[in-house]
C-alpha cells in the first residue's frame, strides 16, 4: 500500500523545467510613462500584480527577465503601461518555448 502511494507520489506528476524568458517591450504614442510591467499565468507572473519592467529608453523600450518553473510549453501574458493592461478584450499573448530553456520575446504594446 505504501509502495503504491510512493509510486503515485513520484511517477504521475507532470515533469517541470526551468525556463528563462527575456522580454523587450516597445511602446509608441504614450508620453511620461510611470510604470511598465507584465502580467500572466504561473509564478513569478500574476494577473493581479505587475512584474516590473525597466526602461532601456524612457517612453520607448522596456525590458525584463524572469525565470519560471513550468510543465507547459508556453506562458500566457499581457503587458501593462501605467497600470493599464493591453489588448483589452483580445486573447492573451502566448510565449512558446517547446524544447527550449531560454527564450527572447519582443512585442509592441497593444499590438497583437
Amino acid at each position, binding site marked *: 500500500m505504501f509502495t503504491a*502511494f510512493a509510486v*503515485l*507520489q*513520484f511517477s*504521475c*506528476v*507532470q*515533469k*517541470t523545467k526551468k525556463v528563462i524568458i527575456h522580454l523587450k517591450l516597445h511602446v509608441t504614442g504614450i508620453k511620461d510613462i510611470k510604470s511598465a510591467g507584465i502580467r500572466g499565468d*504561473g509564478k513569478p507572473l500574476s494577473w493581479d500584480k505587475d512584474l516590473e519592467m525597466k526602461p532601456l529608453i524612457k517612453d520607448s523600450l522596456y525590458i525584463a527577465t524572469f525565470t519560471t518553473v*513550468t*510543465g*507547459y*510549453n*508556453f506562458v500566457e501574458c499581457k503587458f501593462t503601461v501605467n497600470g493599464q493592461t493591453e489588448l483589452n478584450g483580445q486573447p492573451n499573448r502566448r510565449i*512558446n518555448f*517547446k524544447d527550449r530553456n531560454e527564450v527572447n520575446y519582443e512585442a509592441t504594446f497593444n499590438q497583437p
Partner: protein
Amino acid sequence: MTNYFKSFTRPHVLPHWYQDLLTAIPRIVCGYLLTSDFGSSKFGLPWSPADSNLHLFEVSFWFPGDVAEYGGIFKMFPVFFAWMGAFSEAVGGLFIVFGFQTRLFSILILLTMLVAVFLQQWHNGMWSMLPALGFAWVAMYSSVLGSGRFGIDYLITRSSK
C-alpha cells in the same frame, strides 16, 4: 462479489423512457464537459491540449500544490488526491458519458466536486462555486439512479436479475 458488482452496476429504470432520457441528458453533457475540458486540461488523455505537454495519465504540475493548500490530509498526500481528483474528472467524465460504471464514477466525481466547492471555491463566492455545484448535483442523482436506460450499464445488466 459478482452479485454485489452487478447490483452496483444495474441502473434504476424509470417508468417511461423519456424520464430516463431527461436524466441522461445532464449526465452526458456534464461528462462531456469534464472529460473534454475541465479534466483533460489537468490530466493527460489523448485529447488533452498539446501545448499543456501532459503525458498519458499525468496530473498537471501545479495541481498537487493547489491541493496541498487545502490542509489536513490533503497536505499529507497532495499528489494522491490531486491525481484522484483529476482522474475522476477526466476519466470519470468519459465513463458517465457512456453510462459505464455510472455509480462508481458518479461517486468519485461527487467527492471531487464537494472538495472543489468547500475547500477550493468556498471563499471565492457563489458564482465561483456554481460549476462544481452543477457537476455535484448531476453526480448525486446519477450515483443513485445509475445510467437509466441510456447507458452501457443498462445493456450489460438487463439480461440478468
